[in-house]
């Protein structure tokens, strides 16, 4: 709280009550008010009165600006093991071993883009209550090296950085992120859009997702307990559900084309939410998948009226067989047919905190919903455009993930490519690519998928 105020230029006087307040009986709240501040040990209301009446201190009258010192380009030279320890203890990693960003490695990474290393890519913060940090192409490359990425991955990582959307948006509710890549670069850099695409078997998916997290830590100033306040945290934060869309096996046009890009363009799309529910193979067995989706959606509080379906190509084909020739038709179906009671909607803590204020100020349809009887049915996913669909997976099971992720941005990757358009593989990149292809071919062979699908 105090940092929040300072980052708005304000030095305020605070008094703290025991936490939490939500859901506590009235007599407990009264005891809190009549009791002591757990931080200072002094009576809460005495502190409140003093906060309003004690004369200002010199610092309160004429506050000094908090100025962060410019970070040096290079850290002091040291032994490798000491530098690994420095990065870990300074909170500059995700807790896993990193690749040290030597000048040599960073220079090599920068061969993956035509952009000037000193070009400012953007400014980022993990909380609206904190001053943003600024970062260049070179800073992004440093974090890409740390993540274990190669130069071929840098254009996608730069595009992620250019969204200015940090992978770890701070909220006590513990946000998660999702991102996926469309277009030719998926294959060029060896991303996995098929079997196990969301599991840790593919180098490109893994390091790009990890780089986004490391950029949030170092370029958006994520510091546990100071700027990052997620109560539980979220395992999605390690890799951010990073994958490529399976455009080749989808029955629909690719996601980025539906968002206005050309098919031959490469893009990355970023999402934000909290979690995902696995349908566990319900497509078409006992009821159509779209009906099962309506049931699963009941688990979410509908805070932003946004849902993203992450579905296997088999599910997309099944949905299309039900008459949904375009995913927008599925979005319209779900928007129209999903209903929940007003009591269920307004009973959510986050809806109370973040939607009810709009209702009180008269914003529709929330104001009308607030006046409805408890058992009245409402359609809280009222904007079909907020219901998105993406296709990924290996067709070994007709399942999908129902996520509460909302679409943030879709941005071009191509502006960050090297002059040649495609990174020319060095021996290391070629070895990674060869190993990936061998592993993938072996996995397909074992699953029987290669024979049955003709791949």
């Amino acid at each position, binding site marked *: 709280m105090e940092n929040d105020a*300072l980052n708005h*230029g*304000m*030095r305020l006087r605070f008094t703290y009550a025991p*936490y*939490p*307040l*939500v*859901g*506590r009986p009235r007599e407990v709240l*009264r005891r*809190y*008010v*009549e009791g002591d501040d757990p931080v200072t040990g002094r009576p809460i*209301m005495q502190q*409140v*009165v003093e906060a*309003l*009446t004690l004369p200002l201190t010199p610092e*309160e*009258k004429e*506050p000094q*600006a908090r*100025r962060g010192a*410019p*970070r040096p*380009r*290079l850290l002091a*030279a*040291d*032994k*490798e093991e000491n*530098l690994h320890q420095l990065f870990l203890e300074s909170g500059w990693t995700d807790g896993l071993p990193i690749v*040290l*960003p*030597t*000048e*040599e*490695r*960073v220079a*090599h990474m920068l061969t993956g883009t035509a952009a000037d290393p000193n070009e400012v890519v953007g*400014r980022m913060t993990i909380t*609206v209550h904190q*001053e943003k*940090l*600024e*970062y260049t192409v070179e*800073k992004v490359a*440093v974090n890409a090296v*740390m993540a274990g990425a190669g130069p071929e991955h840098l254009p996608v990582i730069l595009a992620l950085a250019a969204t200015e959307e940090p992978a770890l948006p701070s909220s006590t509710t513990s946000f998660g992120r999702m991102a996926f890549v469309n277009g030719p670069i998926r294959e060029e850099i060896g991303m996995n859009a098929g079997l196990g695409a969301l599991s840790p078997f593919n180098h490109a998916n893994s390091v790009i997702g990890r780089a986004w997290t490391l950029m949030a830590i*170092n370029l*958006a100033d994520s510091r546990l307990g100071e700027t990052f306040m997620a109560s539980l945290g979220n395992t999605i934060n390690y890799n951010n559900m990073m994958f490529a869309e399976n455009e080749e096996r989808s029955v629909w046009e690719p996601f980025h084309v539906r968002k206005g890009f050309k098919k031959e363009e490469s893009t990355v799309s970023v999402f934000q939410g909290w979690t995902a529910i696995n349908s566990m193979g319900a497509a078409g067995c006992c009821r159509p998948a779209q009906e099962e989706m309506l049931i699963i959606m009941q688990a979410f509080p509908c805070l932003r009226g946004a849902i993203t379906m992450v579905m296997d190509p088999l599910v997309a084909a099944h949905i299309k067989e039900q008459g949904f020739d375009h995913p927008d038709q599925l979005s319209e179906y779900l928007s129209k047919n999903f209903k929940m009671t007003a009591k269920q909607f307004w009973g959510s*803590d986050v809806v109370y*905190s*973040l939607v*009810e*204020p*709009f209702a*009180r100020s008269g914003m529709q349809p929330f104001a009308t919903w607030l006046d409805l009887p408890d058992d009245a049915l409402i359609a809280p996913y009222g904007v079909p455009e907020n219901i998105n669909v993406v296709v990924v997976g290996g067709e070994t099971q007709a399942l999908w993930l129902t996520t509460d992720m909302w679409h943030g941005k879709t941005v071009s990757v191509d502006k960050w490519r090297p002059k040649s358009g495609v990174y020319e593989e*060095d021996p290391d990149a070629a070895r990674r690519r060869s190993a990936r292809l061998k592993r993938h071919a072996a996995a397909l062979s074992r699953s029987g998928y290669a024979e049955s699908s003709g791949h």
Partner: protein
Amino acid sequence: MALKTAGSVVTVLDPRGQPTNVIEPLPMAPRLDSLEGKTIHLIDIGFGGGWEFLEEVVAWFERNMPSVKTVLKHKTGIMFMDEPQMWEDARRDAHAVIFGVGG
């Protein structure tokens, strides 16, 4: 790519972004000599439990400092949005403001 200097002293780049230092500090508003006969706005910003807690603060003033006039208000809009009208109302109608942040 293999590290040619493995096992020896190496130099690495700082991974952190640069501070932008754009925030200008504001002086705190003058304090009151006393709360006797003054009007205080108690504003709940919307986190759960904040409103009920502030109701108890209002009750405390009624019991212990009855000359203080309290006005309990919801912040309009969500807590992450500025609300110029709220500030204007406070400047015009109140001598002091207590913000309640629940959760």
